[in-house]
């Protein structure tokens, strides 16, 4: 397909010239607190997403170049169903599984660490 926008939108090995990518990037709780010191952020994504895809996705949406991406596949936990509520709650012989997901940790250059740092108050 010809690039109608005349700009490099998303060019990767898998998602070559995809203009409508359908990814989710959910920041895991409280991982942004150490971002000003480490330059790392941890995301939760779908399992079928590659490292190169995440790099280009972040570059396209948020305009920040990513140096490195580490990924971990995490299996969903097996849970036992519970019947009833409160004191009457009792376990049933039925188990279910929560959804699998992929953790993705991105590292950003030192000059970009100030994006999420809070401004100091002028005294």
């Amino acid at each position, binding site marked *: 397909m*010809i*690039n*109608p*926008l005349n700009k490099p*939108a998303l060019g990767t090995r898998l998602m070559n010239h995809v*203009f*409508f*990518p*359908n*990814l*989710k*990037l*959910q*920041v*895991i*709780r*409280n991982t*942004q607190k150490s971002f000003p010191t480490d330059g790392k*952020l941890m995301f*939760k994504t779908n399992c079928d997403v590659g490292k190169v895809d995440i790099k280009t996705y972040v570059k*396209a*949406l*948020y*305009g*920040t170049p990513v140096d490195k991406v580490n990924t971990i596949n995490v299996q969903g936990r097996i849970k036992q169903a519970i019947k009833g509520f409160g004191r009457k709650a009792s376990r049933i012989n039925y188990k279910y599984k929560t959804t699998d997901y992929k953790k993705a940790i991105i590292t*950003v250059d030192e000059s*970009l660490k100030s*994006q*999420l740092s809070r401004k100091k108050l002028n005294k």
Partner: protein
Amino acid sequence: MNQIFRSGISKLIRDNNGLYQRKAEKSLKDLFEHNYAKGTYPHAGRSWEAKDLRGKSFNDLHEIWFELSIERNKLLTEKASNKGNTLENPLRLRKVKKSMAAVKTVLGERDTLKKTLYLLKNESNDAPKNRIEELKEKVAKLSILVGAVSLSPGLKELESLQTALKVDENLEKNIDLLVENKK
């Protein structure tokens, strides 16, 4: 304009050419913007529907898709960080999903029109008449929906097939002459 995407769309400005351009710079701060003041509630309007998006060009849809995906990521982080995995206004996420689906339906209509035009072009003269009539009916139905939008920006061979994009040059010349005579 819809109120849900107020935070997203307010950063966009229309050019003279009709294209959207961002006012503010992109940054990772777009992931976390949901710190509401005490006593306030994040109001939300209605979602984008297919009828709103049908007149828009490919570039506009592309920009809207990116803004929607930024909005979705923002809401998902808010949901994960909040107590009890609940949003403050839980309908917002569903509205974003619905409007993303509307973008896909509009793109799907254009894609089916493109494919049927290809089939009509490549159909031989010996083909049964029912087959050609069916295709022509399909094209007539879809061309009303799609309107005068180029199906494949950059491919001029296909644009010549679309009747909605064709212009009567004689008619335009006559109109120009009339305007000049009035002056």
